[in-house]
């Protein structure tokens, strides 16, 4: 037995050492760094070379994080580490680290713009229009929130997904109002507003644009409320319902690519799920972070984030999906909004 314990201890020690070696790899060398020609960027560059790799907490798809870091390496060449974090925990982690004064991320790219906006209000995130990020003054106004304090770098417009085995293209609903047609009663799968701020936003958009009665009638059409879009879209593909709302084209598109009978209609008047960027007020690498933001908020950076067609996103410089004239930026979510939406939909 003792020899067994000794052997187990030796194995555990070996594993622990191996584990320790796994920790903390990241960043990159600045060997290929290129000093920008823009004088403001160049000034930041000169200071940034003495800092460590800029660190980003991101909700972006991993493929987009890769495009972004590759694009930045090509444009500037300074190191950047982009860490994808689950959308359910990015806010908690960022806020907890800020509270513990252990800020790791210089930049936050969150799918919850309400959170970023609130952090600006608290001084935990710097208002972008006061952050001295070169080129930000040219950033398109329709992608600036709160007067420019928070930039949205990408938006996935919300629409209506449907199962092509259940409904043919001609009869598929194309507007939100079509969903109240009695023939869809009990055939619409919906994602619950309980699980995410962005879903509260889209239901709130419908409530504000069409009134509480509309949302109540819409709730009565639901076959079921799912906790997450992922589970709901898989159920739609299987034929558990004929229609899914709210959803993004990216989700149904990914399924359709694998042969699932899924399609997507984008109503002209809609809102979306934007991703917002923020600069931490306690950023460990403030100059490198501002330099990276000047790239992220440029046309090239936006191309990296919005240039993948199948992800069905819209960017500030007219990349990706074209948003209709009636597209509306989502409002900030408050507890009252969430309660109002839940009460009208009947989800509590």
């Amino acid at each position, binding site marked *: 037995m003792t020899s067994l314990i000794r052997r187990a201890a030796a194995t555990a020690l070996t594993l622990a050492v191996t584990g320790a070696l*796994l920790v*903390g790899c990241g960043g990159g060398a600045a060997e290929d760094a290129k000093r920008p020609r823009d004088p403001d960027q160049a000034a930041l560059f000169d200071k940034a070379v003495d800092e460590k790799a800029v660190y980003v907490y991101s909700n972006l798809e991993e493929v987009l994080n890769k495009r972004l870091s590759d694009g930045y390496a090509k444009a500037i060449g300074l190191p950047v580490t982009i860490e994808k974090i*689950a959308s*359910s925990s990015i806010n908690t982690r960022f806020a907890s*680290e800020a509270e*513990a004064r252990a800020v*790791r991320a210089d930049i936050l790219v969150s799918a919850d713009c309400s959170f970023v906006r609130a952090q600006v209000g608290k001084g935990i995130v710097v208002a972008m229009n006061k952050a001295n990020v070169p080129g930000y003054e040219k950033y398109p106004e329709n992608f600036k929130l709160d007067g420019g304090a928070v930039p949205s770098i990408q938006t996935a417009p919300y629409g209506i997904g449907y199962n092509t085995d259940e409904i043919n293209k001609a009869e598929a609903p194309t507007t939100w109002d079509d969903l109240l047609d009695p023939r869809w009663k009990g055939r619409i799968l919906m994602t619950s507003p309980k699980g995410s701020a962005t879903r509260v936003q889209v239901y709130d958009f419908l409530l504000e644009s069409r009134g509480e009665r509309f949302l109540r009638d819409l709730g009565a059409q639901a076959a079921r409320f799912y906790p997450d879009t992922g589970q709901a879209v898989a159920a739609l*593909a299987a*034929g558990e319902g004929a229609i899914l709302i709210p959803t993004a084209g990216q989700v149904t598109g990914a399924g359709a690519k694998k042969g699932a009978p899924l399609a997507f209609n984008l109503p002209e008047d809609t809102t979306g799920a934007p991703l917002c960027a923020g600069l931490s007020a306690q950023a460990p690498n403030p100059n490198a972070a501002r330099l990276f933001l000047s790239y992220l908020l440029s046309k090239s950076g936006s191309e990296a984030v919005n240039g993948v067609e199948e992800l069905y996103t819209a960017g500030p410089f007219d990349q990706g999906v074209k948003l209709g004239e009636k597209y509306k930026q989502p409002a900030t979510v408050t507890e009252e909004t969430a309660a109002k939406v839940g009460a009208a939909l009947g989800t509590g």
Partner: protein
Amino acid sequence: MNAAASRTRATRRPTPFKIASLAVITVVAVVVAYPFVRVVWRLFWVDGAPSVDPVERAFTAPGVGELVRDSTLIVAVAGACAVVIGSLLAWLNERTDARIRGITGIVPLLPFLLPSIAMAIGWTLLLSPRAGLLNVWLRDLLGLAGIEIETGPLNIFSIHGMIFCYFVVLVPYVFLFVSAGLRNMPGDLEEQARVAGAGSAGTFWRITLPGLKPSIAAASVIVVWFGFAMFSIPLIIGTPAGIDVLTVRIVRLINFTYPPRTDLAVSLSLFILVIVGGAWALQVRIMKSGMFVQAGGRGAHASTVRLGRLRWPARAFIAGFLVVSGILPVLGLLITALNGFWTPNIHWGDLGFDSFRRVWEDELTVSAFGNSLLLGAVAGTGIILFAALMAVHVRRDGGVVTRLLEAAIRLPIVVSGFIVIVGMILAYSGPPFELQGTFVLFVVAYMATSIPQASIVSDAAAAQVSDDMVEAASVSGAGDGRIFGRVQLPLMAPGLVAGWTLVFVNITGDMEVASMLASSRQPVVGFQLLDTYNKGEFADLAAMALMLVLITTLCVLIGTGLGRRLSGRSERRVRTARNK
């Protein structure tokens, strides 16, 4: 001076081993409890004075009555069924001729090997009212009998569906604990009862069951604990059913409410604290009563109970459980993985391994597998050894300080893993620890989430080690360290291996710590499962879960094999010592 007096004095005198044990337990207690105390302190101590607001909030939270009622109902019904069926399966496998070597010992563990998110999705794929594969097949069968229905006949999105899933997930825990207890329990009393004319049922009822009290008590605590801690199943199945439970509400208050309502989340956790605390107190009382048989006392190898005509029905019962709890959800996942997406319209000729290939070729996923298995092995081994040390220490020196330290280690996790992990980020991310972005923070988090479970197993294992054996070793001149390593650990081995399996599987398939601490820079399996779930890529999720099941099954097989070997050794050791 007689031997007994000198022995008593020896046990009272602090030895280097006792001091070292206490030091280790103190350090772990501080590491685990500090983040929790930090979070809770701010809620109960407002503006320099104590506050009862959290308790008030707990009772006045919207819909709290319904929330507590539904949570309790689901855990109570599913837990009671799991204790009965799990114990019966363990007895059939350990004590009767219904056992089939290499099969019946593994069957009840199958649902335990599937990560909970995969289990919930597996049942969703099978029993969704319209598109569930099993429902479609059942409707086809009913159609042959002229009965035409459009949905059902079964519906996983209901309270019955939730209770069923909870039951399936909880049975393996009971099976593990009760099996370990049966292996540790000498069979001579049962043998004597049978010789004296008691039937199999009478022997089971009068001898076996009372002897299993510590194991069943431990299993019941785990069942209550895990039942109230479950997250994936109530989220995936409860939300579409319109049923909320405490854990889901707590996580939503932390992760999906802005600003996070940590105060209300902690307040709601008080209900879980009271219920699980009560179950734990009951377990401690049962252990203290000492009304059970201890290994190493008058041990003898257990003989096999012959079931006669009931042998094959018993085997059919085990096979039925295998089909319902293990094969069906795995089949649902497998068909979906091979098809590429979930659909009831399977084109059997078009099935392929693309999903498995995608998972296998994804560097991040491969890295996640490596990290999870490594963390499971390292943290799992460390945690179970620590739990054994604590169990022995508490048993020998169960003073107030030791009990307080034990409570400090056990209680935080009851108040929701998510709250504890937020506390850990707050406590250990910054200076002087600077643990952010390291796997050390994972290990610390796993200590908080897993030591309480591991210690329930090790307490039961320690309770079944006879004090006579320890005293005999002490009289022979062995020090405390030597007694721990050479006598107590080997005798506790079957239970500890069961505990290691529990911790290892929990860590490799963990979603709680993964969702809060993992990232693309530090991927673990739970993080990857969550990512594929969020994208609705059920085929890839199924492939990933099945690959994890294969790997963990291998590890558990090695673990249970080792357990049996160690069990055999400890039995031989006991017999040798007794003969001397």
